[in-house]
C-alpha cells in the first residue's frame, strides 16, 4: 500500500468515525443546553460560586459573565506562574517572568495555548494541572457557551434572554468535556500515552550521553488538549512527542478528538433552531473547506520535487516517520482549521505552499470546523454576511433562519470580521517595521517573514500552533501576541453576544417561496465562496510575500 493510499484510507476512517459520532453527540449537546434540570454536582458548584443558574440573562449580562470569569482566569493563572517558586510539586522550576506569565495566562484562557515556554523545562505539576489543564476545560466550555447563546439568539424570538452563562459553562464541563475527556484519556493510555506524576528521569542514549525524560499526567491533558481544541502540549514537541502521541492510531484518534465537538455542534445548531438541515448546510460548508485544504496539503507535501524529497517519498523534513506525510498533513490541516494548535510535525518545515495552507486555514477565522464553539459562531457570522449579500439578490431584506439582517445585525457582523485581520496585519507590520522583533527570526527572506506572520495569525485567531523557528520568548512577542490573543478572543465574543441579543429580540419572519433557502447546497457553495473571497483575500498580499513567494520559487 502506497503512502497516498494509506492517507486516503486514514481520511476515510476519520470521516467515518466523525459521521458515526455526529448524530448522537450533536443531539446530546442540544439536550444538555436545552434541559432545565441540574445535576447534583452542578448545584454544588452553583452554590460554591454563588450563581443562580435559572435566571435568563440578556446579552450584556451574559457577556459580563464571560468577561468576568475569563478575567479571573487570567489573573489566577498569572499569579500561579509568578508564585511557582513557592508552590509544591514544581519540580524545582522557578517563577515565570512577568511577560511570559502574562502571555501564557492570556494564551490558556483564550483557548489559544500559544506556548512561548518549554513545558518540560518551565512548568511544574501544579501549574500544569491546576492552572493550564483547568483552563483547557473552562476556556473550551466558555467557547461552547457563547456559540450556544448565539444559536439561542436565532432560535428564540421576542425575548432578550440568551440563557444562563453559569449553567452553560458548568454543563459544558460536567456533561460534555469531562466525560468525553475521561474516555479519551483512557483510550490514549491504552495506546501508550503516559499518565503519572513522576519526576524527571535521566536516561542514557544509544549513542552515549544522556537525556532527560519527564513524567507527568500527559494522557489526561492530551485528551482535553485535543477535545477542547486547546493545543497546549505537555511537552514542547507537542503531539510529535512519543509520550503524547505514540502511534499512527493515536495520531488519527487525536485528529478525531480535535474535530469531534466542532463538527457535532453543527448538529446541535440544527436541532436547536428546529431544522437539522440548516445544520447540515453549515456542516457541508465546513467539510468542503476542510476536505479541500486536506487534499491540497497532501498534494503539495507528496509532490516530489528535488532529489531529497523524491527519496523520502514526500516532504518528510520536520515530520515524524511514524505518521508520514499523510498523517502529518491531515493533522496539520485539522489543527489549523480549528483553534487547536497542537502539532505532530513542524509547520515551518512543510513546503512553502503547505505552510501557506496552514496559515490560510487560521486566517479564514478557523471556522472549518473551527474551535469548540468559536468555529460555529465564526461560521454563523460568515453565514450572516453571505446571506446579507445573497439575500439582496433574491429581492428581499435578507433574513437568516427567519431573522432579519438589518443595520444593527450587519454592523455587528462587520465589526466581528474586522477584528482578526486588524490584529494580524497591524501587529505583523509593526513587528516588521521595528528593529528588534525581526531579530527573533531564525530564517531570512520570505521564510523569516512567514515565521512572524504565522505567530500573529496563530495568536489573533486563538490557534496557538507555532511555525517554529521564531524566538517568541521576548518581551515584544510575549506582550503583543498576548494582546492579540485576548483581543482576538473577547472582542469577537462581544459582537457575537450583542448580535445574539439583537436576533433573539426579533419576531421571526415566516419562510415563503421567496425566502433564500439556506439549507440548500447552493447556499453552502456560496458561503464557501464568500469565506474565501472576503476573509481569504484580505491576506493575499501578506501570503504572497511569505509562503507564496517561497512556495512558487521552486
Amino acid at each position: 500500500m502506497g503512502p497516498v493510499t494509506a492517507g486516503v484510507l486514514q481520511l476515510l476512517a476519520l470521516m467515518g468515525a466523525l459521521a458515526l459520532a455526529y448524530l448522537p453527540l450533536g443531539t446530546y449537546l442540544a439536550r444538555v443546553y436545552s434541559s432545565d434540570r441540574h445535576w447534583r454536582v452542578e448545584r454544588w458548584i452553583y452554590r460554591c460560586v454563588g450563581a443562580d443558574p435559572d435566571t435568563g440573562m440578556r446579552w450584556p449580562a451574559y457577556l459580563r459573565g464571560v468577561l468576568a470569569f475569563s478575567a479571573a482566569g487570567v489573573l489566577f493563572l498569572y499569579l500561579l506562574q509568578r508564585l511557582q517558586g513557592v508552590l509544591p510539586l514544581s519540580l524545582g522550576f522557578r517563577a515565570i517572568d512577568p511577560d511570559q506569565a502574562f502571555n501564557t495566562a492570556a494564551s490558556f484562557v483564550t483557548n489559544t495555548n500559544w506556548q512561548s515556554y518549554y513545558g518540560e523545562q518551565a512548568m511544574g505539576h501544579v501549574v500544569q494541572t491546576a492552572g493550564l489543564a483547568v483552563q483547557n476545560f473552562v476556556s473550551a466550555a466558555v467557547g461552547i457557551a457563547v456559540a450556544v447563546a448565539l444559536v439561542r439568539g436565532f432560535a428564540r424570538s421576542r425575548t432578550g434572554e440568551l440563557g444562563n452563562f453559569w449553567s452553560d459553562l458548568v454543563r459544558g464541563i460536567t456533561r460534555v468535556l469531562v466525560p468525553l475527556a475521561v474516555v479519551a484519556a483512557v483510550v490514549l493510555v491504552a495506546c501508550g500515552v503516559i499518565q503519572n506524576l513522576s519526576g524527571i528521569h535521566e536516561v542514557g542514549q544509544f549513542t552515549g550521553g544522556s537525556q532527560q525524560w519527564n513524567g507527568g499526567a500527559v494522557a489526561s491533558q492530551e485528551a482535553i488538549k485535543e477535545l477542547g481544541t486547546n493545543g497546549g502540549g505537555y511537552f514542547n514537541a507537542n503531539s510529535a512527542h512519543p509520550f503524547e502521541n505514540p502511534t499512527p492510531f493515536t495520531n488519527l484518534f487525536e485528529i478525531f478528538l480535535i474535530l469531534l465537538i466542532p463538527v457535532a455542534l453543527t448538529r446541535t445548531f440544527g436541532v436547536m433552531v428546529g431544522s437539522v438541515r440548516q445544520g447540515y448546510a453549515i456542516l457541508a460548508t465546513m467539510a468542503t473547506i476542510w476536505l479541500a485544504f486536506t487534499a491540497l496539503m497532501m498534494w503539495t507535501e507528496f509532490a516530489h520535487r528535488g532529489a531529497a524529497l523524491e527519496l523520502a517519498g514526500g516532504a518528510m523534513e520536520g515530520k515524524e516517520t511514524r505518521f508520514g506525510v499523510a498523517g502529518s498533513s491531515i493533522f496539520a490541516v485539522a489543527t489549523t482549521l480549528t483553534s487547536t494548535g497542537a502539532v505532530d510535525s513542524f509547520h515551518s518545515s512543510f513546503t512553502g505552499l503547505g505552510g501557506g495552507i496552514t496559515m490560510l486555514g487560521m486566517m479564514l477565522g478557523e471556522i472549518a470546523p473551527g474551535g469548540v464553539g468559536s468555529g460555529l459562531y465564526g461560521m454563523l457570522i460568515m453565514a450572516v454576511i453571505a446571506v446579507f449579500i445573497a439575500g439582496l439578490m433574491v429581492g428581499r431584506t435578507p433574513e437568516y433562519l427567519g431573522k432579519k439582517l438589518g443595520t444593527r445585525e450587519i454592523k455587528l457582523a462587520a465589526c466581528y470580521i474586522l477584528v482578526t485581520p486588524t490584529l494580524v496585519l497591524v501587529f505583523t507590520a509593526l513587528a516588521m517595521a521595528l528593529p528588534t522583533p525581526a531579530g527573533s527570526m531564525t530564517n531570512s527572506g520570505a521564510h523569516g517573514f512567514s515565521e512572524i506572520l504565522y505567530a500573529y495569525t496563530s495568536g489573533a485567531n486563538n490557534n496557538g500552533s507555532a511555525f517554529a523557528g521564531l524566538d517568541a520568548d521576548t518581551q515584544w512577542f510575549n506582550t503583543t501576541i498576548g494582546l492579540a490573543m485576548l483581543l482576538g478572543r473577547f472582542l469577537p465574543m462581544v459582537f457575537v453576544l450583542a448580535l445574539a441579543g439583537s436576533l433573539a429580540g426579533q419576531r421571526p419572519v415566516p419562510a415563503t417561496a421567496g425566502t433564500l433557502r439556506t439549507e440548500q447546497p447552493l447556499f453552502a457553495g456560496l458561503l464557501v465562496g464568500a469565506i474565501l473571497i472576503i476573509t481569504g483575500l484580505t491576506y493575499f498580499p501578506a501570503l504572497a510575500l511569505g509562503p507564496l513567494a517561497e512556495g512558487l520559487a521552486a
Partner: protein
Amino acid sequence: MTTRTENQEDSMSTAIPTRAPHDDVPTGHQPSGGRVGAGLFDPKQLLRSLPEAFRKLDPRAQVTSPVMFVVWIGSVLTTVFAFTDPGDWFGWTISAWLWLTVLFANLAEAVAEGRGKAQADTLRKAKTDTVARRTDGSVVPGTELKVGDLVVCEAGDVIPGDGDVVEGVASVDESAITGESAPVIRESGGDRSAVTGGTKVLSDRIVVKITTRPGETFIDRMINLVEGAARQKTPNEVALNILLASLTIVFLLVCATLPPLAHYAGTDLTMTVLVALLVCLIPTTIGALLSAIGIAGMDRLVQRNVLAMSGRAVEAAGDVSTLLLDKTGTITLGNRQATEFVPVRGTAEAEVADAAQLSSLADETPEGRSVVVLAKETYGLRERHRGDITGAEWISFTAQTRMSGVDVDGRKIRKGAAGSVLAWVRERGGDIAPDADGLVSRVSEAGGTPLLVAVEDARGPRVLGVVHLKDVVKEGMRERFAQLRRMGIKTVMITGDNPLTAKAIADEAGVDDFLAEATPEDKMALIKREQAGGKLVAMTGDGTNDAPALAQADVGVAMNTGTSAAKEAGNMVDLDSDPTKLIEIVEIGKQLLITRGALTTFSIANDVAKYFAIIPALFAAVYPGLDKLNIMRLSSPDSAILAAVIFNALIIIALVPLSLKGVRYRPVSADRLLRRNLAVYGLGGLIAPFIGIKIIDLLLSLIPGIG
C-alpha cells in the same frame, strides 16, 4: 361622469363595498407578462449630467459614501505626489484615472438625479402663482393661505392649495399631476372630495377647505421626491453601506500594513502604487453606483406614475409577503356582466333575452349594456336603440327603484334587482313562478348576481326569468397570482360580496384567500394578524375608511382619486389609480434590492482578478516565483497596475445603464433567482475583470514606453 354605476353596485351587492368603484380607472398598466420593464436610458444623459458630476467633486458631497470618499482622498494624494515628481508619467496617469473613477461615480448619481429633475420641472409648471378667493370675499396669494381657509374655485380657476371640497361638484383637470387628460369629478362628501393644488377646475363651482400649508402640498412633496431632495438612505442601503465601509477598512489596513512587509522583501512601494492597489480592492463599483441604484428605483416608480413617499416603502414592497387586493377593479373588471338568461318554467329562453334586452335599453350602466350585448351575441337579437322604437316610454334605472324598463305596445317590461322586481309583480297582483326563487338562489350560490326580468302584458304580470350577472375576472390574473405564489407572496382578495360569491370569484381568479363582506375593521384585523406572524402586508385603498388600514399596512398604496385622508395615510400614491399596479410595485421593490445585491457581489468578486494583476506586478521583481501568479501574462508591472485601475474606472461607466434600469427580474422562486444571479454576477464578476484587464493591458502595451 356619472355616479350611477355606484348606485347600482350599492343596490345589488349584499354588503357595503369597501371601496367605491370608479369608472375613471384607466385600463392601462395591464400585467405585462410578469416582467418589470426597464427604465429608459439614453447615453446623451451622460453628457448632459457632466457639469453636475464635476460639481459633486466637492468633498462635502463625497463624504456621504465612505467608499468613494476614500477614492477621492486617494486621488488628491496621488495628485500631490505627482506634483513632487512631475516627470513621472505613471503617477500622473494613475492620478488621472483615479479622478475619473470619482467622476464616473458622480456621473452615475447625476444621471439618476437628472431624470427626476425633468419630471420635477413639469410639476413646477403646475405650481404657477395662484390667487385664492376666500369665501369671505378677500383675495390673497395662494402662498398665504392657512389651513382651514375656505376658498371658492370656479370654472377656469387653478385650485390654490390641497384641500377637501366642502360644497358643490366640479370637473377638474388633474393632468398636471397625473398626466391623464380626461377630467375627473370632485364633489363634497364621500370619497372623492380631495382636490390637489395646481389642478384646474373645468366646470361648475366648488368651495374648498384648505388642509395643507403652502410649501407642503402634494405637488411640493412630489417635486422634492422626484428631485431626490428628500431622499434618505433606506435601511437596507444603510446596512449595505456599513458592510462596504467595513470592507473598505479591511483593505485600508491591507494597504497601510504593506509597506514594512514590502520593505523587508526588498522593495519600497510608492504612495501612488499603494493608492492604486487600495482603490482596486475596495468595493468601488457598488460604492459608486449605490445611490444611483436607489434614485433609479424611485424613478422607476415615478415612471409608472407611482409616488413613493419614502425609499423605505419601496424596499418594504420587495419584502411583502401578503398582498391585499380589492376585488373590483383589481381582480375583476370593474363591472359585472350578464352571462346567461335563465327562463322560469314555461317560458322560452329567447323570450327572456328579448325582454331583458328591451328593458335594458334604458339602463346605461355597464351591467345594463352587458345585457344588451349578451342578448345580441347569443340570440342574434339586433341591438336596438331607444330611438328605433316609437311610442315607447322608457323607465330609466335609478337607485331608488333599482329597476329599468320600458312600456311599449301595451307591454310593461321590467328588469332589476330581485327584490324590486318581485315587489313590482306582486304590486300588480301577478304570479310569481314557483321556480323563480330557486333560480335566484342558484345564481347567488354560483357567485353571481341575479337580476329578474318581468313583464305585464295580456297574460298579466309575471316573472319571465333571471339574468345571471357575473363578475368577470380580468384576463391573465390567474397566471399572475400563480407567479406571485412562486415568489412566495400570498394574495388575499378583499370584497364586500357575501362569502359564497367571494369564494366563487376567489376560486376562479386563483387567489390564495379572500375576505368577504369586508368592513374596514375586518381589513385592519387581517393586516394586524398577518403582521403578527411576521409578514409584511401591502394593500391599496382610496376611501377615508381605508385610511387606518393604509397606515397600518407596510406598503399602503393610495389611489390618487381617493380622499386626502387616504393619501396621507398611505406611503405611496398611484396617480393612475390602478390597483393592479400593486403587483408591479412589489416587483420594482424586489428589483431594487436585487440590483444592489448583484452589483455588490460583482464588485467583491472583481477583487480576485485585480490581486492577480497587481501582486505579481509589485513583487515579482524581488520574488521571481510570484510571476507565476501573473496568469493574465500582463506585459509590464506598470501596465498591469494601470490596466487594473482603468478597468476599475470603466466598469463603473459600463454598469451605469444596468444600475439605472435595474437587474432583469422575473417572478420566480428565490432558489432560481439566486442561481441565476450568482451565475451572472458572481461568476461573471470573477471572470469579467480577467478578460477586461487583459484587453486593456494589450491596448496599453501598444503605447511605446509602457509595454
